[in-house]
């Protein structure tokens, strides 16, 4: 069994020490720092990127907040404006309707006055006609021309009786 050849132990150990020491130096001085540098660089880069992303996100959140505040303000303003407009409109409508009502009332009063005047005029005209008819019909019936005053009295009486009916 070659593993038990004690004479071969020493050269193996000597070269093992030499090569292992060489590998240790190469690893610790050259290879490991290089790998560590790359890994650290990458970790830093990733951390940087994450930090930047965080910053962007907080900025976006800030913007969103501002936007929401603005939106709320605008909404409030809009509400106020619409409420004011409604009140104004209501007032305007009220005053307009009042004005037109007043105008209508005036016109109604005027019309009543006119109707009254027309009616009394018509009544006066009617009495004249009634007097004329009475005089003519009495003359024709009985051949006597009645006294103007008597006729008027009779017409007034009849008109008064008519009014009572």
């Amino acid at each position, binding site marked *: 069994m*070659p593993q038990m050849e004690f004479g071969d132990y020493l050269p193996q150990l000597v070269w093992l020490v030499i090569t292992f020491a060489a590998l240790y130096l190469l690893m610790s001085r050259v290879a490991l720092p290089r790998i560590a540098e790359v890994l650290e660089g*990458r970790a830093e880069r990733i951390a940087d990127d994450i930090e930047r992303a965080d910053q962007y996100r907080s900025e976006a959140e800030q913007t969103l907040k501002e936007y929401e505040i603005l939106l709320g303000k605008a909404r409030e303003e809009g509400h106020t404006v619409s409420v004011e407009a409604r009140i104004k409109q209501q007032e305007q409508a009220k005053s307009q309707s009042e004005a037109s009502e007043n105008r209508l009332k005036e016109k109604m009063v005027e019309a009543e006055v006119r109707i009254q005047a027309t009616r009394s005029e018509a009544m006066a005209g009617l009495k004249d006609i009634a007097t004329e008819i009475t005089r003519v019909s009495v003359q024709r019936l009985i051949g006597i021309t009645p006294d103007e005053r008597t006729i008027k009295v009779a017409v007034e009486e009849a008109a008064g009786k008519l009014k009572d009916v």
Partner: protein
Amino acid sequence: MAEKHSPLDQFGINRLVEMHIGAVDVSFTNSAAMMVAVVVVATLFLTISMRGRAMVPGRWQSMAELCYGLVASTVRDNVGPDGRRYFPFIFTLFIFILFSNALGLIPYSFTITSHIIVTFAFAAVVFIGTTVIGFWRHKLKFLSLFVPPGVPIALAPLLVPIEIISYLSRPVSLSVRLAANMMAGHTMIKVFAGFVVLLGLAGVAPLVFIVAIYALEVIIAFLQAYVFAVLTCLYLADALHLHHE
């Protein structure tokens, strides 16, 4: 010729260049040649792959970074933050054993770690190193490692010797595990390779078996290197933190 067919022949040490310093035999052997190859291949792998220092790694750079990350996380998880200064040593140990195991799988090459003297040298360095670190850090309090916490004092006479024996057997188990794994796998492949030749056409069966075993050996080559590194971390953690954690 009969000697050449022995499955153990592949583990033979051949002196390529005879050298002596005084009475000391420092001959450059096939084992030494593989050690040099390990250093060269490992160094080239870990430096050329990182040459681009790419932010987004390619295949080779990914592998190098994975090696680094694997050992770094093993040290971090098992030893803690004060294990950082021992990281280069554990990394070198892992890479040396990994490449020894892996290069040994190339046909006609030689597996350094199939020799118990080599694995025992690693284990001895780990064992002596962790013991020295333990005593240096905790002085005589390091001996409390042999008294398991939360155990009645009456049991101490029984448990302390067991703990001491288990502590002393660490380098043995560490070295034998690696060397035996390497040796067993390679021997088995060689034995079945002999069957392939002997059985002629029916040799397809052992050939298929060899392919499967070879795949298993590739896994074992990595796994044993990792196990060695993990156990080294655990022993180091014991030395640094005693029973705490």
